């Protein structure tokens, strides 16, 4: 190997590295000193970083760094701070009665905001993001309530659910009159048409209204009431209004009567804290249908 310090390129007057390919020599052009220094500094920086910050994975944990810093702890602190900031307001929400919340614009706004996010996380899968519902899942914006639409009733439904298995849950269900052999097929058609007549919907030509009334009186009145106006304490829907959870045409009604219905609403007590449940009740009530 040539001593490159003594090998001077005749054209440029610069020393070469001594490397030569096909008669072309590589000039010795070192990196600028500031560049080299910065490069070493970054290495020093990296080593310092390993020491100061948590960096290396160990078998069951990791190096903790000089000051025991961790971003997880940062998050915990920030969450705690948030809790502190929100604490007062949420405490006020927890203390106020449902009716008072709706009367206080600030509390109402807070409850609606809180309720809306919680609703989006927990209720939207069934009831839709705006509470518009779907077949079998009630629309929470209208004024028809299976289990009652006052603030307290809504809160109770959210807390304990319906057929949720909770001790205080709403119970009661639509029997399967066809499947269980209580009513014959033609009787089901007749009573279905009778129910449509209760709601002012057109009926099948030549259907026997008197027979329908008789079947209804024997089988349905117990839950849905004499005129079919429903009973919130049993979750029996009003059959005379314009809102139908499972559809109002003849086929849908026949299906309902022969198969029965028993939608489930989970209980939220225990999963959400009381103030949050309250906020959600206020939010649902304020969707517009509350009574």
């Amino acid at each position, binding site marked *: 190997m040539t001593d490159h310090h003594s090998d001077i390129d005749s*054209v*440029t007057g610069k020393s070469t590295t001594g490397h030569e390919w096909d008669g072309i020599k590589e000039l010795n052009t070192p990196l600028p000193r500031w560049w080299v220094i910065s490069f070493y500094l970054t290495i020093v920086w990296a080593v310092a970083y390993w020491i100061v910050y948590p960096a290396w994975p160990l078998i069951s944990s990791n190096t903790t760094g000089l000051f025991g810093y961790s971003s997880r702890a940062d998050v915990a602190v920030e969450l705690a701070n948030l809790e502190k900031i929100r604490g007062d307001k949420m405490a006020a929400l927890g203390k106020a009665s449902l009716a008072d919340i*709706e*009367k206080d*614009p600030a509390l*109402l*706004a807070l409850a*609606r905001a809180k309720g809306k996010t919680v609703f989006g996380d927990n209720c939207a899968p069934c009831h*839709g*993001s*705006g*509470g*518009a519902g779907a077949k079998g899942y009630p*629309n929470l*914006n*209208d*004024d*028809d309530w299976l289990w009652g639409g006052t603030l307290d009733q809504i809160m109770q439904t959210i807390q304990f659910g319906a057929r949720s298995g909770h001790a205080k849950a709403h119970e009661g269900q639509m029997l399967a009159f066809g499947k269980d052999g209580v009513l014959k097929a033609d009787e089901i058609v007749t009573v279905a048409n009778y129910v449509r007549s209760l709601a002012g919907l057109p009926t099948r030509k030549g259907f026997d209204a008197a027979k329908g009334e008789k079947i209804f009186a024997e089988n349905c009145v117990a839950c849905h009431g004499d005129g079919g106006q429903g009973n919130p304490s049993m979750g029996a829907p*009003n059959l005379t*209004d*314009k*809102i139908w959870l499972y559809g109002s045409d003849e086929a849908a009604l026949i299906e309902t009567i022969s198969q029965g219905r028993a939608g489930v609403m989970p209980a939220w007590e225990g999963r959400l804290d009381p103030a949050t449940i309250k906020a959600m009740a206020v939010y649902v009530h*304020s*969707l*517009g*249908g509350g009574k």
Partner: protein
Amino acid sequence: MNKTVNPKDLTLDDDNGPLYAARKKVYPQSVSGTFRRIKWGLMAFCLGVYYFLPFVRWNRGLGAPSQAVLIDLPNSRFYFFFIELWPQEVYYFTGLLIVAAVALFLMNSLGGRIWCGYLCPQTVWTDLFYAVERLIEGDRRERMKKDKSSDPMKLERISEIVLKHSIWLLIAWWTGGAWVLYFNDAPTLVKELVTFQAPMIAYIWIGILTATTYVLAGFMREQVCTYMCPWPRIQAALTDEWALNVTYRYDRGEKRTSVKKAAELRALGEQVGDCVDCYQCVAVCPTGIDIRNGPQMECIQCGLCIDACDNVMTKIGRPKRLIGYDNDINIQRRQEGKAPIYRIVRPRTIVYSAIIAAIGGFMIYTLATRSLLDVNVLHDRNPVAVKLSDGSIRNAYTVRLLNKSGYDRVIAIDANGPANATIHVIGVDSVTPDRPMIVIPRDSTSELRLLVTAPAENNTEKSVPVRFHVTDIGLGEVASATDNFVSP
């Protein structure tokens, strides 16, 4: 024939150096005269406004900020004397920026880069830093000598340098400090800054602006104008032959010779110029150029060379303004023995002025007539419409009321649209049926959930427009917004 080429002959520079030309340090000399006086005056005015404006108070009543100019970021408000802007009014700033840009064009078509020479912050602060430098290290010659001398640093010289940089840093720090005062109540913030109670972000901003001022005005100087600023290049495309530019009147400048020789030659009836080649115009130039070479991109049109040359001309008894604000057309005309003409009113200036007047006028109009009560309505999307048990239809809206005034308001809300509609605001028991009333505190917004219910029979159309009116029942001020009432 085939001469061997010496590679050294192929380099682009005679000195065989790098292709990049190193900066030649500029040592502008002090000068006195008309334009220097104008520059001092404008500097005092601009810096005075910038440094002290935050301390000007303005009474807006109890609870409202009392600072005349305040950008209140946390509360999203902008205060400018009697004007208070809300976030949805940021378009005023857009308008202001457009007006500013066109004003710059107008200035350019009238007087070339006078913005650069007199008002640009880079120029103003650099000028101030030069003044400090001159005061401490002496004028051009002295500074050049001191920089060149290879003497070991004497204590005197070191103390000079330290003093200069300390004063520069002080000015830079004050510049950063004044900046943050626009974002917070100035006296309070000053107190907090001194006692180290101010928020971190204030210190960070002061740090950033101190650093940029120090570096840009102390070291970068004219390089900002020549290499960093896009304006010299843009303005070259905007200028025209009528714009007044700092011009060397070569028609009476050439050929250059000494005073004595010129007098002799003149006596013989020969053509000689007034320029005595004294280089005063070059010495004072903050960008270090020779204006006698014609218009140049580096020239910021500060007019200092005019002052320098005027002083020389006075001394040698020749007419002033051998260098002056002029245009090339006039040099031509003078040579042809015609009187110079100046044209301020030209299609270009008329268009620019008209744009400024139009946008400015429109802004003033909207500002003067803008309502301090506003309403925004957002229709519920999910569900758009709800059928109620009795068959009627209900639509829900999020209504945002803005009370930009300094007093609490009692507001009544009406909805005109679907036939026989009733309205209800959640959380409000209407005293007057179908006309809910609520109170919005001053300088705040309220968000309401509003329900419009109408019987289905009367509203068979898929969608009918509905107009919401909000009325300040005390003052009668009305604002309204339109949306639709949708049937399922």
